[in-house]
């Protein structure tokens, strides 16, 4: 990140990063008969896109001064994901955990997260990863922005300048690249291209073991939220069925023979497909 900005600002920025704990997508297996993933097959880890979001926030803090708060909604053991965030440079961490939050779709998740942000109160910038590797929706960031009534820019690939009241970013939408100035308070979602997340040092890891993580359950949010909008009851969508992708396997015809014969056969296939120029 080529970040320009004043070394310190009069008022340090309050930056909030939304983080999700996910199963390790490289290792996870699926039980297609039961239509669900085998939770025991992979360890829980931090959503990789969220590490880019956290790194963005920490780099901004290091450049211009500020406080980075990480928020995560999930089961009790998601506290590990927040400890990892603290080791990687977050200053504060809030875990939203309650059986009432469970079974939430993107609408209920975004609502709950936005309530936690409201409860925290003052903030300048919210940073989210582009999407999560398990849900793949890329919806929670923009939905949180709507619930908070703030502007947002998605798919941020570079942060160029941070001032006391605004941030300038580069975002790419399909074939066009946009240089965009967005005022605070606002939200950005960042892609994997925005930076390379740092690895926590052993010292930071040890420090984070002892760091305090604020834990809020549903009752803690009731001054800013309506309980029936959390979790399953607040969800507008439901998964009717899960199955293995059908297009996964094809009957592959392995071409045999000598090198020349193999190549000739493939050349014929390509000619037949009408792609030979």
């Amino acid at each position, binding site marked *: 990140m080529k970040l320009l900005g004043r070394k310190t600002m009069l008022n340090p920025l309050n930056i909030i990063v939304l983080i999700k704990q996910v199963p390790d997508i490289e290792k996870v297996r699926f039980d297609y008969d039961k239509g669900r993933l085998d939770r025991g097959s992979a360890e829980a880890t931090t959503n990789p896109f969220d590490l880019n979001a956290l790194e963005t926030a920490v780099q901004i803090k290091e450049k211009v001064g500020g406080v980075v708060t990480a928020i995560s909604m999930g089961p009790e053991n998601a506290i590990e994901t927040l400890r990892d965030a603290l080791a990687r440079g977050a200053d504060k961490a809030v875990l939203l955990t309650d059986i009432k939050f469970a079974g939430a779709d993107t609408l209920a998740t975004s609502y709950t997260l936005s309530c936690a942000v409201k409860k925290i109160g003052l903030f300048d910038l919210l940073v989210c990863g582009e999407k999560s590797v398990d849900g793949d929706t890329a919806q929670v960031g923009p*939905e949180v922005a709507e619930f908070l009534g703030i502007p947002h820019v998605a*798919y941020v690939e570079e942060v160029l300048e941070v001032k006391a009241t605004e941030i300038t970013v580069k975002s790419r939408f399909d074939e066009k690249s*946009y240089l*965009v100035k967005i005022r605070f308070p606002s939200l950005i979602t960042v892609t994997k291209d925005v930076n390379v997340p740092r690895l926590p040092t052993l010292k930071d890891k040890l420090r984070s073991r002892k760091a305090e993580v604020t834990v809020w359950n549903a009752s803690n949010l009731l001054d800013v939220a309506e309980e029936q909008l959390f979790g399953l009851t607040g969800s507008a969508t439901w998964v009717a069925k*899960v199955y293995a*992708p059908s297009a996964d396997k094809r009957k592959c015809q392995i071409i045999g023979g000598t090198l020349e014969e193999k190549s000739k056969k493939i*050349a014929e296939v390509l000619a037949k497909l009408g792609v030979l120029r």
Partner: protein
Amino acid sequence: MVEKGGVLVFAEQNDGKIHPVSYELLGKGRSLADNLGVKLSAVLLGHSIQQKASDLIHYGADIVYIYDHQFLADFDVVQYSQNIVRLVKETDPNIFLLGATRIGRTLAPRVAAALRTGLTADCVDLILDENGKLVQIRPAFSGNIMAQVKTRTKPQMATVRYKVMKTNVKDVSRSGKIILKTAEILSNTGIQILEKTETKSVNLVEANVIVSGGRGLKSPGDFVLLNELAQLLGGVVGSSRPLVDSGWISKDRQVGFSGFTVKPKVYVACGISGSPQHLFGMRDSDTIIAINKDASAPIFNVADYGIVGDIYEVLPILIHELKKMKKG
């Protein structure tokens, strides 16, 4: 008279040009609307874009709502979403579809949250159940599973992946209603576009043929070989992630979960073993040809034709054969 309970499609435009995914949505929307016995509408926001309305009708829309304003020329998520939210409240559609482009996926969640309705991302198919409810089919877990999602609120909203749905043949005899709406405009949304540049990237998604290289390549220079094959086939060169991460080739060539999802007519995988993340991005290609030394490589599970062999031996001969054919 406003038609309520219909199917609404977001017509996406960039610099006044309609994104082809919008026509695909009209194709799918047309069949959904016909099955439900309702009208198909499209909403188009932009500046001086009124002449595009007839195209939308020719591709299937019954009604086109136009919001024409200079502040809508470029996509501004706040301006766009507030006008669309107002239209949805007024016309009360049952189903609302947007393209799963970056613009669609930026806009749709805001609209859904404002309407407090459900939204299903990046659908690859849409069908109706026995009660006329929308069944939204999408991959999840980086493409490892498929999920069927239903929505209990209205409208049932979904973003739909580009190049999955079929565009109807343009029918210039179709007629429809064009309704000009007054745009509600904020003088300052907090978002200001300072500069807009075309990215000079290769358009993998639009390519007819992709010749991709993987870890079987020994050096960055060897992409020349793949490029020669791609040229003969009128295609472009793609890559799996490791080579992009190593800086051998630019990110705009990356096929896979963290790169592009492609669906060319022909995909030639050269020295690609086929990680789930790579397969996610290419397995819907019409014809897949795999060349790999390792006969047990997962790429062969999704391929139509396979050669077990060294790409450094196979490719030069294949290129030679193709050149011969071309002459003959």
